[in-house]
């Protein structure tokens, strides 16, 4: 080995030793300082991972969650029995919290709705909300089984109803627990041949068995209602109650029949048991045509069935001039912040006369449900119910009551 080669090798060895053996610390402070110095060489800012980026966007209202603004994906219901509907919307805010919202929805059964809605809340120190809508909807295959509690499933027919309307509403809250609502508008109804697997209504029923069948009325409509409530949130509550009464009247501008009206009452009470380990939730509701002489088109009559009424029966299974609904749930909470379960029993009936709203011959179902919720809203409700016409699955966004 030459001197030169030996020297190079020696230098390499020394350098390697110096590199591989950490410089010694002479104090604890020195030791920590060296580690900090080493980290300083590689310090880099926090970089969010893909999941963080995604969830951040969700929190900011992108995708399906959050407050819609600008273009958004819309979900909801067009008309009872139409199934889940989806579509697009555009919301434009004006001022602090007022907005104009346009949306178009198409449901699983082909029901359609196009609507422009304006909403301006919290006037007069937060006591008054105002809203107005103009809309058109098309429900293509709404079930009609005939009137009365004894109607038969095999008699089902479908009707198609198109409704164009313009309406406005004011909600006044004079005190925290009381809401008064005044609303009214013009409703233009057009009856068409029902679609779907069942025969169209005019093939199976007549104006005698389905009042105002074939009529295309135009109504001036008005409603006044009052509700006393002490619920945590209308979308989700474990305690409190809601007692409401409403009167709605229709005056024909076009079409047969005369003025008619409805009175609707509802009592809801949630009774928490042992610190909300369980909640007994009770509801009683009636819907009634006001006067015996009132001629009410069959498609505006009170109905019961599926949704949040008699969950073990087909949608709008029972229809007549008066209805009574009694619902009870025993709810329990596997998870406080997101998951509820419920055992429920629904009872109800429809009748041609108010005196028929007795507790005899009630249609009954029972079932079990699971609900995914936030502190103030029920995002998804899945109920399985069994009545004397079989078992049914109800999937909905919103509380049963």
């Amino acid at each position: 080995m030459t001197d030169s080669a030996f020297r190079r090798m020696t230098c390499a060895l020394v350098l390697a030793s110096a590199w591989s053996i950490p410089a010694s610390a002479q104090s604890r402070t020195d030791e920590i300082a060296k580690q900090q110095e080493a980290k300083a060489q590689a310090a880099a800012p926090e970089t969010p991972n893909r999941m963080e980026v995604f969830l951040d966007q969700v929190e900011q209202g992108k995708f399906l969650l959050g407050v819609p603004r600008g273009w958004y994906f819309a979900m909801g219901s067009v008309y009872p029995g139409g199934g889940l509907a989806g579509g697009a919307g555009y919301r434009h805010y004006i001022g602090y919290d007022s907005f104009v919202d346009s949306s178009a929805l198409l449901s699983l059964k082909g029901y359609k709705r196009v609507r422009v809605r304006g909403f301006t809340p919290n006037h007069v120190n937060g006591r008054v909300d105002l809203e107005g809508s103009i809309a058109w909807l098309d429900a293509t295959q709404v079930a009609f089984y005939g009137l009365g509690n004894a109607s038969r499933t095999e008699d089902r027919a479908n009707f198609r109803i198109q409704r164009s309307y313009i309406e406005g509403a004011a909600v006044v809250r004079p005190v925290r627990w009381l809401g008064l609502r005044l609303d009214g508008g013009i409703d233009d109804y057009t009856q068409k041949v029902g679609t779907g697997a069942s025969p169209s209504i005019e093939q199976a029923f007549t104006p005698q068995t389905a009042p105002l069948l074939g009529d295309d009325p135009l109504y001036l409509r008005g409603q006044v209602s009052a509700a006393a409530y002490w619920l945590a949130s209308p979308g989700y509550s474990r305690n409190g109650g809601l007692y409401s009464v409403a009167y709605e009247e229709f005056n024909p501008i076009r079409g047969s029949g005369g003025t008619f009206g409805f009175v609707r009452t509802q009592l809801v009470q949630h009774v928490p048991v042992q610190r909300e380990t369980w909640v007994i939730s009770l509801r009683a509701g009636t819907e009634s045509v006001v006067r015996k002489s009132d001629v009410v088109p069959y498609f505006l009559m009170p109905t019961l069935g599926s949704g949040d009424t008699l969950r073990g029966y087909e949608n709008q299974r029972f229809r007549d001039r008066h209805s009574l609904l009694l619902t009870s749930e025993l709810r329990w909470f596997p998870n406080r912040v997101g998951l509820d379960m419920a055992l429920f029993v629904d009872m109800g009936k429809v009748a041609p006369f108010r005196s028929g709203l007795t507790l005899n011959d009630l249609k009954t179902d029972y079932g079990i449900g699971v609900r995914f919720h936030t502190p103030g809203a029920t995002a998804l409700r899945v109920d399985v119910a069994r009545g004397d016409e079989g078992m049914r699955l109800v999937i909905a966004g919103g509380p049963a009551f």
Partner: protein
Amino acid sequence: MSNRLRIVGRVIVAAFVAAAVAVSAADQKFYDDDPIPREPETQDASKTQSWKNVLSYDLIQNLFAPPGDPRLIRAQNVNTIDEVPDSSWFTNRILAREVSIQEATRGPATSPGPAAGPMTVTRAKPEGISPGFVVQDSAGVTWFVQFDAARYPEAATGAAMVANRIFHLLGYWQPEYHLADLQPEMLTIGPNATTETPSGKIRRLDRADLEKLLGRAARQQDGTYRMLASRAIPGRVIGGFRYYGTRPDDPNDLVPHEHRRELRALKVFGAWTNLVDMKAGNTLDTLIQESGRSVVRHYLQDVGSTFGTGALAPREWDEGYEYLYEGDAVWKRLVTLGFYRRPWQSVPYTEYRSVGRFEGDEFDPTTWKPRVPTAAFLHARSDDNFWAARRVMAFSDELIRTVVAAGRFSDAAAERYLADVLIKRRDRIGRAYLTAINPVVDAALDQAGILTFGNAAVEAEVATAPAGGYRAHWYVFDNASGESRPFGAVTATAAGRMTAPMGLPNRQGEFIRIDIEAVDPPHPSWTVPIRVYFRRTTDAWKLVGLERSLAESQKSE
């Protein structure tokens, strides 16, 4: 061999000798500056950048995929005597020194609060469950102000005020909080004041916006609003800190946060005060100037979710008892129709509107839980809990009543009740954690070879003196090799004082190790000895090391 080769050969030898010395120095157990009283921060952190904490990510990760080092190891930021040095995270106050009543009352405050006179709103904070404003007082100081919920006056502001004083005394960086009365007519809106609408739009703030926000707050009989004013924290805000990992852009942040004792100790402090909302979003890092360089200071910024109240209403029944999601409990409750019972369903409460649901009779600190599993808590061991419990026990009854008075509760019964519950919970923490491991503390060795020490459990009156007394095993300790050589006989005492056996070294720089165990049949864990190390100085023995060995079963507590 040529001269050159000889020179090169000497260089090689010198290099290896130097390396050997370096290795030797690196292996020594104690340095001259041990135990360090302050965690050094030697690097400039001015390049740290603000990061955004995504609330839902933080929640989901902590609930379903607990992050952090899976090892349950000893806290990594303690000094050689098992104490937490002062740092940008923590300042030793209570227990480390006497704390006066005045200091407890004052807390982190450096001023008397917002200056009297008009206040200018510079920004509104309508979002969140606890709305508020950012204001500038007549002296130009910026304050963040929050209010009580309309139905629960004094609750949220009182809790935040009391907790602020407690966590300051415990050693955490806290914002400066004051309670003050806001006269709405004294509010003016700054020319650049903005607010965020529900749609997320930023726009100029107007009077109606202010009135909307105040409409959600509790108003006092004289028309004023009781407000919690939090002085803007000094420095540039750069996000919060997580309870795991380190901040990658802060060169001084070396110890994974789940291995920081003061963060692990929040399990005990949180249980004491029922601070259930432990999340990154309630912390704040700021970049400040210190000793001529930029360093990151870590604030436990929002400790308002304490005691029995939340921002808007009393606590949910299960808070403090269950995480937001516990798979096991969910399934059991689901299949049993809710008949799977948990303690929160039957704990009795005395409820005051300004205190909420807070009690001390059924409280069990070992089973207390925050809303979401917190990585640092999951790594807390018995020695961390012991360390924390000593600080809780250092709060005398008088001190507790003093800090509770800082909440300025108008209902004297509520104030008394809150203090009573804190006292009861303090004592339960002492009984749970001071007795769980060998509680020998404050070891000292004087020049004459008299060893003295205390018993934290006995001093706190949560245990009686060990029936079998104490035993000490004495060793000469070689700091370079780490080897210990026994000397003398085992010494024993019924109290915390004993004389060293024959053979105690007395040369400056020598080390000894003493293993002290307590013999008490009801407390078998007390026989696991603590190891204390002393270094001989010119004329005394200096405590340089303390190790609390744990029984295997205690390492994951």
